[in-house]
């Protein structure tokens, strides 16, 4: 009976014009979205490679120079573009692509793609994640809204009931018939994406495992929508009402709740303004050693402490350049200040994430989106991870430069210049994003919520159709 109903429903679906039209539109949109994204992806990666190598060449070829001058000259940490960002661009567009690394200061990522776009960008981009997250659920609504209501309206329901079949088998047959085209479409899309991505060169390591995980997340998301649409169709009497109700669910889940979540999260746990943040950092910085200010109270205390530790009376008697040493201590103090203030931002981000997670109970879109972005390495968490890695590299770089300055010159010698070959010995910045397993552990709550949606909606569907 399950197979019988599945084949009957599938035949009906494919013989109807609206289904063929809907399929053609979605396939066209998907092809277009993949094409556009692949092109953008290739462009961005080419720019990334060029920028990364040319910046390193500039650093390596600074010639003889004072290490602290080099520290102010600075360098860049470039955020790699990961293969799965072709499928889900996440927040990549808004987070910036590179961080300028310099002495005394932690900078934020800059040069986001969004800033390069004109006002027309407000219309949104045609990307695969837009199709996956919005259009395919809409297609599910259009294909499934009358799955049960048509039986009532056509009058076939009474004949079916008189045949003595089992309700749950019949429902499962209908469920499979709606699931199959969505399953086929999603599978083809991810296979094509996999083949495309695995063929790309120089752009990070593509993982079939991650792509498969993302594929499963989207399948779960679609199953939830299939369950909800069929549930509505089973409980209401008219197709028109079913369509409106299913569309309302789509609007609330995909458009309303995510936007409301964003507003609620920002209201409950706001980030400080840029001015407030800068003022707070500056105030805290003043509480400690300033590498460039030997006359401050903190610098004098440091001086006394170091002289005492080394048992000498003058900074000239120290076996290293105290200017460079103070510079390093200043860096360490500033790093702590930035750590404290960025930690506050991260806490706010974490609190905002909790708001999103609590609202995920009324929208399967939210856990799906978070999981998808995490797997694609295009979420805020990965961006924070990258920014932290860049900050660690900045701190290490400053220590590397200050150590060279301190060890190779004496106190007061600001004329010291490191050898031209020295710059090449600075390790290259390498960022490795979290592995899939780590991502899944971090997203346990999202997996759990999506699981509840998946099994809960299926259970309710089966239970409610007992009384059709």
């Amino acid at each position, binding site marked *: *009976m399950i197979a*019988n*109903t599945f084949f*009957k429903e599938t*035949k*009906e679906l494919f*013989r*109807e014009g609206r289904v063929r039209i809907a399929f053609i539109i979605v396939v066209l949109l998907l092809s277009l979205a993949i094409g556009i994204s692949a092109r953008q992806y290739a462009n961005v990666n080419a720019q990334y490679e060029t920028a990364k190598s040319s910046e390193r060449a500039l650093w390596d070829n600074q010639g003889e120079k004072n290490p602290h001058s080099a520290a102010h000259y600075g360098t860049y940490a470039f955020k790699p573009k990961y293969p799965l960002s072709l499928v889900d661009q996440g927040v990549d567009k808004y987070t910036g692509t590179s961080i300028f690394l310099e002495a005394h200061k932690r900078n934020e990522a800059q040069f986001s793609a969004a800033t390069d776009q004109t006002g027309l960008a407000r219309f949104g981009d045609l990307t695969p994640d837009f199709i996956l997250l919005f259009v395919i659920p809409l297609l599910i609504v259009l294909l499934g809204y009358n799955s049960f209501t048509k039986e009532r309206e*056509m*009058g*076939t329901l*009474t*004949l*079916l*009931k*008189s*045949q*003595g*079949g*089992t309700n749950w088998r*019949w429902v499962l047959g209908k469920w499979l018939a709606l699931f199959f085209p969505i399953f086929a479409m999603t599978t083809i899309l991810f296979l094509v994406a996999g083949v495309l991505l695995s063929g790309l060169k120089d752009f990070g390591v593509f993982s079939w495992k991650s792509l498969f995980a993302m594929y499963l997340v989207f399948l779960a998301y679609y199953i939830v929508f299939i369950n909800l649409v069929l549930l509505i169709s089973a409980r209401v009497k008219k197709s028109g009402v079913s369509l409106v109700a299913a569309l309302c669910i789509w609007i609330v889940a995909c458009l309303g709740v995510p936007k409301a979540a964003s507003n609620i999260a920002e209201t409950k746990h706001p980030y400080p303004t840029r001015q407030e943040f800068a003022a707070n950092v500056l105030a805290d910085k003043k509480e400690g050693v300033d590498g460039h200010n030997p006359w401050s109270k903190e610098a004098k205390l440091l001086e006394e402490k170091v002289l005492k530790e080394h048992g000498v009376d003058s900074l000239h008697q120290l076996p290293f350049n105290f200017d460079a040493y103070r510079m390093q201590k200043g860096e360490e103090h500033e790093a702590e200040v930035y750590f404290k203030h960025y930690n506050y931002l991260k806490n706010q981000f974490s609190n905002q994430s909790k708001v999103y997670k609590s609202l995920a109970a009324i929208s399967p879109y939210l856990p799906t989106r978070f999981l998808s972005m995490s797997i694609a390495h295009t979420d805020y968490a990965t961006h924070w991870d990258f920014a932290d890695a860049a900050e660690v590299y900045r701190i290490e770089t400053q220590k590397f430069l200050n150590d060279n300055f301190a060890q190779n010159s004496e106190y007061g010698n600001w004329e010291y210049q490191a050898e031209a070959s020295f710059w090449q010995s600075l390790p290259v910045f390498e960022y490795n994003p979290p592995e899939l397993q780590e991502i899944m552990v971090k997203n346990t709550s999202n997996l759990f919520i999506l699981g509840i949606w998946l099994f809960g909606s299926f259970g309710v569907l089966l239970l409610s159709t007992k009384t059709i």
Partner: protein
Amino acid sequence: MIITNNLSKHYGNHVALDQLDLQVKAGEIYCLLGANGAGKTTTINLLLGFIAPTSGSAFINQLNVHENSKATKQFLAYIPENLMLYPSLSARENLDYFSGIAGKKLSKSETSNFLEEAGLQTEAIDKRISSFSKGMRQKVGIAIALAKDAKVLLLDEPTSGLDPKASNEFGQLLQKLREKGVATLMATHDLFRAKEVATHIGIMKDGQLKQQLIASDISLQALEKAYLETMSYQILA
């Protein structure tokens, strides 16, 4: 095959069916006559197990319908007034599907045989139902009953809206099923068709079975008179 004992159905204060005692044996065609709201469709819905009785009981093949709703359905076939099938599927595909729901897997030749036996023209078998007339759809309904090998056939106004030729063909099909031992209960307004096909006739009014007649013992005119008298209409002429 079909037995009802004091079968009643109330909707609040409204009595849709009142203590119906009825028996239809194998090879009998029982026509229930009555105006709209007389209780004919309620009787059929109770026998189908679609609604629960307020009191009394109904039996199909000795099984209590209310207690064994699913089991009794394997013995019966049902054709409503306006038999609707899936318009984008062919007659064969519809038959195949409905038989599958009843747990019968048919081969291609079996579906052809059943549809032809039900009187459907060979060239229509693989045509989509959307192009079928009501009479043709009713024939597919009969084919579904044949394929199910139903012992009981429940018909709710099956000839309503059919042209005389189609109605006559439908009557002949019922006779064929009767010869096979099928017990048929048919709710209808059509006195002429009832007289033509029935072995037994019952006249209902206000949820009660007012008269039971042996069809062969009564003429069409007498049947009409009995019907009108039961309905309390004044006989003209």
